C-alpha cells in the first residue's frame, strides 16, 4: 500500500520509499522517513497534491511521489 491509496483521515507508518535519491532526500528533509507517522488530511482534485500531517506540520506532496511511498496503516 502507498500514501496515494490512503483515505482522508487515516493514519499510517512509513515503511519504505521507492524513488530516486533526489526525491528521497526531499522527503527525508520534511520528515517523510521510514518509521515516521503520517495522517492524510486532504486530497486535491484533478490528481492534485495530497496534504499530510507529519508531527505538527502540514506537508503537501504530489501524487507521483505519494505513489512511491510504501506505508502500513495504523489503527485509529
Amino acid at each position, binding site marked *: 500500500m502507498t500514501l496515494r491509496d490512503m483515505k482522508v483521515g487515516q493514519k499510517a507508518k512509513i515503511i519504505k520509499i521507492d524513488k530516486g535519491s533526489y526525491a528521497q*532526500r526531499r522527503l527525508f528533509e*520534511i520528515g517523510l522517513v521510514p518509521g515516521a507517522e503520517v495522517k492524510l488530511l486532504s486530497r486535491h482534485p484533478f490528481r*492534485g497534491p495530497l496534504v499530510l500531517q507529519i508531527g505538527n*506540520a502540514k506537508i503537501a506532496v504530489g501524487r507521483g511521489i505519494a505513489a512511491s511511498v510504501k506505508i502500513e496503516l495504523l489503527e485509529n
Partner: protein
Amino acid sequence: MAVALIGNPNVGKSSVLNRLCGSSIFVSNYPGTSVEVTKTKFNVVNRDVDIYDTPGIYSLHSPGEEQRVVKEMLKSEDIELILNIVDATNLERNLVLTYELLELGIPVVVVVNQIDRARVMGIKIDPRKMRSLLHSPVILFSAVSGEGLVQLIRVLESGDFAAQIDKPGMGKKVAVDLSLSGRYGERGKGYVIPTETSINEADLERAKKARDTAKFVTTQMKAGQKIWLERIQNILDHPVIGVVLLLFFAYLGFLLLLKSIELSEGPISTVLEPVNRLIGHLISEILPSGIVSSVLSKAVPEGLIIPFTIIMPAMLMVSLLMSILEDTGLLPRYSVALERAGSFFGVSGQAVIPLSLGFGCRTPAILATRIMPSEAERFIVITLLSIVIPCAATLGIMASVVSTFEAYLPVIVLTMLATLTILGFILSRIMPGESVFVYELPPLRLPMWSNVWSKVKVRFSGFFTEVLPLLLLMNIIIRALMESGLLNIFHDMENFTRFLFGIPAEAFVAVLITIFQRYLAPLVLLNLPLTPREATIAITMIALSLPCLPVMVMTVREIGLKGLIKVLIMAFSTSFAVGIILNCILPF
C-alpha cells in the same frame, strides 16, 4: 566574534534576529525568504558580534542552492557558535538538522522558537531533558513575546562558547565522530563540512535519534481552544472551497490594484500639474534658449506624469499586497492550489511564488527562483519571468498606451496567455527534470504590520532610486531624438517593419528600446500617430520582449551569462514571432 543562525525553513530565524538586534531583515511566513547569507553586526558588552543569518535548510547533506550557501559560509567564515533555531511545534523534524550540526564540532546553542504557539497547541517542552540529550544549551524562545531573549544575550555575552557544552568531545577543537557517516571529505577552517548527498544509514540514524529525543522531551496535553485563525486555515486548506477562495482573493487583489490606481490618479494629477508648470517654466528661464532648453522644458514635466500618476500607486499597492500574502502564509497555499496548473508548464507549484512576485517587480522575483527544486525548473521560471510576466511598472504604462490608442486589450491579454502556455510547454519538454512536489504549509497568521511595512518600504524604495530617474532620463533622450529628427533614419526600415509586423518603423524602434527598460518603450509609442491595430501589435511585441536591465543583471548573477544569452535569444524570437503572427491574423 562570528555567530551563525541555522535552522529549517520557516522556523523564524529572521524574527529571532529581529528580536536580538531590532534590524529590519525580510521576515516572511513562507519557506525560502532569505536566499542569501546576511551579516548583521550586533554589540554585546562592548564586543562586536557578527551574526550570519542563513537561508532555511532541512539538512546539510541536501543538494541545492540554500545548502550550498550555508556550507560555503561554514567553510569560509570562522564561525565560533551556531545558534540552531528549531520550531517548538515540530521538534521531530527540526532536530535532524540539530544532530547534523552537533557533529560538525562547532559549539551549538539550540533556540526553541515559537514556544508561545506550541503552548497554545498543548505542547510542553522540558528544556533540561533536552539539554541532557543534546549536551548543549537549550533556550525556550518566543520572537513574539521576547521570552528567552535575556538568556540568549547572556550566552552571547559569555563569549566562551566551548565552555557551554556539557560533554568533552563536543567542543570545537576535539575531533568529531566521523565514523558515524564516514563521508566528511571537505575540510573548512577546522571543521569538516559534509559533501555527499544521497540518503544513508547515518541519515536514518539521525532521524531516529531526533524522533526519540522529541518524544522524550515533549508532553502533548489537550490543545487549548482552537483559535479562530486555525478555523480559517482549515477552510482555506480545503481542497475545493480553499482553492476557490484563494482564487477569489487573488481576483479581489487585482481589482483593488486597478481601483486604487484609478482613484489616486485624479488627486495626484491635481497636485502634479502646477508643480510641472513651475518646473517647465524654471527650466526655460534658467537655461539659454535653444534645443537643450526646449527639450528639457517639455521632457521633464512630461516624464513625471506617468511615473507619479500610474507607476507609483501601482508599485505601492503591489508591494503591499505581496507583503501581506507573504507574511500571512497564504503564498505557499497558492503553490498547492495551483500545482496542477504549474505542472502543465513543467514546473512545480512553488513557481507561483516567483511568478506572482514578478507582477510586482521582476528583479526580486529572479532571486526568489532559488526556491525551485531543480536547475531546469529554475531556468524555465526565469525565462517565463523575463519574457512573459509584466511587472507593475510595465502594466501601468501598458494600460495608458492601450487607452490612448484604443488598442484591443483582449487580443493583448490572450496573446500573452497563449505565449505563456506555449513557451512553458516547449521549455518543459526540452528541459525535462524529475519534478518533486513536496511543500510545507506554514500555519496561517495575522500579518505583522511592522514586517509588512518594512517590506513595502524596501520594495517601493526602487521607485525613487531607479524607476523615476531612469524614466525621466529616457523621456529626455526620446524627446531629444524626436526634436533632432534623428528617428527619421528609421523611415528607411518602414517597408520592412510594415511588411513583417504591420507597424511603422518608429514603433519598431520602441520594441528595440526595451533593451534599456521595458516599461519605457511604450513611452515612444505615446508620441506616435498609431492606429488601434498598429498599437495592439506594437504593445504586444513590447510586452513579450526583453527583460529590463536590472533583471538582466540579476539573471547573470543567478544563472550566468550563458543563461542570460539563452533567455535573450528566446526573448527576441518570441517577440518577433508574436509580431509576425499577429500581423497575419489581425484584420485591418
